[in-house]
């Protein structure tokens, strides 16, 4: 093992020196700036340039993949007091080392495994780092509603205002303004920390809601004829969060809008008591909602075979298309030989198939997780 590492180091060093001799440091960022996914906390420029070198260097790309597998092994071999720490380190490193942030980085799979490993643990329910992993996982999935409902049902992230702000922003992006309002009020009533941040978000939400009615009318008129299916889904989804929340809160929301001023509402102890027995109910609704969505989306989204699809062209345009197909005579090189290219094709296609199979597994798993973020949770399976 040590010898292999030494060999890799020796091979990498002359290449970096060779690259440094030609270019100055920081050039890779400028050259490949469009392949960098922006991160909220920003990026380490040195790590970014190092990662972007993988575009031109295949060996560096392999070393990145190996480094990722090492970090994953470190998670399994951790013996310390804080088992969440190696997960956090691995996630941060992958975000830095794979700037495009696509499926090939495996980040969604790592998110899912991390959240699945500790969701039943009382120790990390109130941990801010664990909540942030959940929120980033939600950002990468289609049905983030399921994740937020799951967090609310299991009491994960209750004391933190980030949970309520993220949930409200997500609901607002789906035009569920009443539910977003209720969620922010719930956070304030629970005195989530930091409370000033939550109240500021609530004021901003209210300012946005004041300017909204005109936009709502316009958007409804424009989108209604082209997105009838979407509106039906939206109506269906609206029922679930309403059932979770108490019906008493609806008139308070209306009063707030009419008065046009933020109103802090004191929640009775009876209301807080009512929320506790509601916990099992959303779990049931969660199961049913997830099952239906999964079936539909899986049927639509799983990529099919290439031979199963055809796009026949219209006869009218064929006539048009035929005329510009005047033959273009191309000068043929003397060097080109058919036999060599054919032999080369035969050899390499087999190797490509092996690679494709590996990539397919990772990609399919990522796809399934995007569709059903909590697919593996009912089984309570352990991390792989």
């Amino acid at each position, binding site marked *: 093992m040590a010898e292999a590492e030494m060999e890799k180091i020796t091979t990498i060093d002359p290449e970096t020196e060779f690259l440094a001799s030609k270019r100055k440091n920081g050039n890779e960022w400028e050259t490949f700036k469009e392949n960098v996914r922006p991160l909220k906390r920003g990026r380490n420029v040195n790590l970014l340039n190092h990662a972007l070198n993988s575009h031109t260097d295949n060996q560096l790309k392999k070393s990145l993949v190996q480094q990722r597998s090492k970090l994953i092994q470190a998670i399994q071999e951790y013996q310390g007091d804080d088992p969440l720490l190696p997960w956090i380190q691995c996630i941060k490193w992958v975000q830095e080392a794979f700037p495009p942030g*696509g499926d090939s980085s495996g980040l969604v799979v790592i998110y899912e495994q991390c959240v699945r490993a500790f969701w039943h643990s009382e120790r990390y329910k109130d941990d801010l780092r664990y909540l942030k992993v959940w929120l980033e996982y939600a950002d990468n999935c289609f049905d983030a509603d399921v994740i937020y409902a799951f967090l609310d049902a299991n009491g994960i992230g209750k004391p933190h205002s980030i949970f309520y702000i993220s949930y409200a922003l997500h609901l607002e992006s789906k035009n569920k303004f009443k539910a977003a309002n209720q969620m922010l009020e719930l956070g304030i009533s629970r005195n989530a920390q930091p409370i000033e941040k939550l109240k500021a978000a609530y004021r901003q939400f209210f300012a946005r809601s004041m300017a909204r009615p005109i936009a709502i009318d316009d958007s409804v008129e424009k989108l209604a004829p082209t997105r009838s299916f979407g509106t039906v889904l939206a109506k269906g989804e609206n029922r679930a969060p309403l059932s979770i929340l108490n019906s008493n809160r609806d008139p308070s929301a209306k009063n707030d809008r009419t008065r046009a001023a933020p109103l802090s509402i004191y929640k009775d102890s009876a209301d807080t008591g009512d929320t506790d027995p509601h916990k099992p109910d959303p779990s049931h609704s969660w199961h049913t909602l997830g099952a239906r969505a999964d079936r539909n989306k899986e049927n639509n989204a799983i*990529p099919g075979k290439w031979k199963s699809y055809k796009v026949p062209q219209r006869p009218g345009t064929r006539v048009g*298309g035929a*005329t510009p197909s005047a033959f273009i005579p191309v*000068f043929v090189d003397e060097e080109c030989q058919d036999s060599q290219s054919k032999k080369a094709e035969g050899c390499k296609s087999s190797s490509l198939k092996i690679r494709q199979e590996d990539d397919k597994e990772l990609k399919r798993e990522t796809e399934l997780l995007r569709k059903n973020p909590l697919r593996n949770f009912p089984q309570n399976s352990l991390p792989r």
Partner: protein
Amino acid sequence: MDAGSLSSSGTLKTRSRYPLQEQFIQRKSSKENLDRFIPNRSAMDFDYAHYMLTEGNKGKENPDVCSPSREAYRKQLAESLNMNRTRILAFKNKPPAPVDLIPHEMSTHTHDNKPAKPKRFIPQTSEKTLDAPDLVDDYYLNLLDWGSANVLAIALGSTVYLWDATNGSTSELVTVDDEDGPVTSLSWAPDGRHIAVGLNNSEVQLWDTTSNRQLRTLRGGHRQRVGSLAWNNHILTTGGMDGRIVNNDVRIRSHVVETYSGHEQEVCGLKWSASGSQLASGGNDNLLYIWDRATASSNSATQWLHRLEDHTSAVKALAWCPFQGNLLASGGGSGDRCIKFWNTHTGACLNSIDTGSQVCSLLWNKNERELLSSHGFTQNQLTLWKYPSMVKMAELTGHTSRVLFMAQSPDGCTVASAAADETLRFWNVFGAPEAASKAAPKARAEPFSNVNRIR
């Protein structure tokens, strides 16, 4: 004497009556419009003169007959009143008439517009999703193209696959070495038979897809990878990472016929106009160049026709308007996020729309005035815009990573999109008008075929 006195008293009475009328008329005219006072005066004076003369003559000639004279008086009075009224009416009627006409015209226009342009249904989901494993996740490449023979070419890693959309058959064209690969660009020739393959080692290979044979390799034009290709009949234009743009004549041995220098970084967008006289190139240096084939060859201070600096990020998405020859749409990267429209003759920016996310590719609808854009980070959607109002008609979601490449079918109805999530999706986003009315598209197809014939 008595008769004379009677006649004189009658004339006096009539005179006294007329001045009152004159006063009323003057007041009305003064209230309405002072400018019209003078013509009214002249008109009234003439009339009164005539009436007085006729009344005097009749009175003298027929003193005995009282009833006919009275009748004559009445008639004259009626005539004078009528004439006065007509004049007054004439002045009053003019102003309100045009006011009434305008709203009627507007209402008729609105009624005509609505039934003439019904909104067509745009399916929100992709018709089909195909697997595209090992597709390179790189914004600067061009790995997808749909030829005029209805064959789709896509590069997956170091392999180029050909998918015949007519019968769904798939074949592997070429797999390059790891040293030369991966494939960095693809472009079909206008004949739909030859295809150009750009590689990471700065070479460009030309293949004959009917016989699956490599015809030649273009070397020496670039020093780094060739990320963009564009055909102009027998001229293949290549754009490289070294910022150079090379025109290659594929018919002759010495293929380099012209070189355009101007970009400082990678050329990631390259498109010839429909007429073949202008070339648009976008680069990673946030610049958009317009090269005129005639101007570039002449000895001028600068080789380019226009150098456009409005974009604040890499310019890759380029699309020439099919119904307006000198109109170009360009899309900026993640730092810019705008779609801009340019008049390529004057170099003026006509419009700029902030789409909110990285613009990866642009396509014009050949039948309607619409523009389709594919986007990257955060939402990974395809957006259909109505030109020139730039209103969003549809947002197509389904891709889970950046929608890097788009290609349009030869009939212009189907769009294929390839994304970093390694899927290839087909959208029936332009196809509705032909499906809706069978007769109309036939009529539409004919003039377009004529245009193609001219080409």
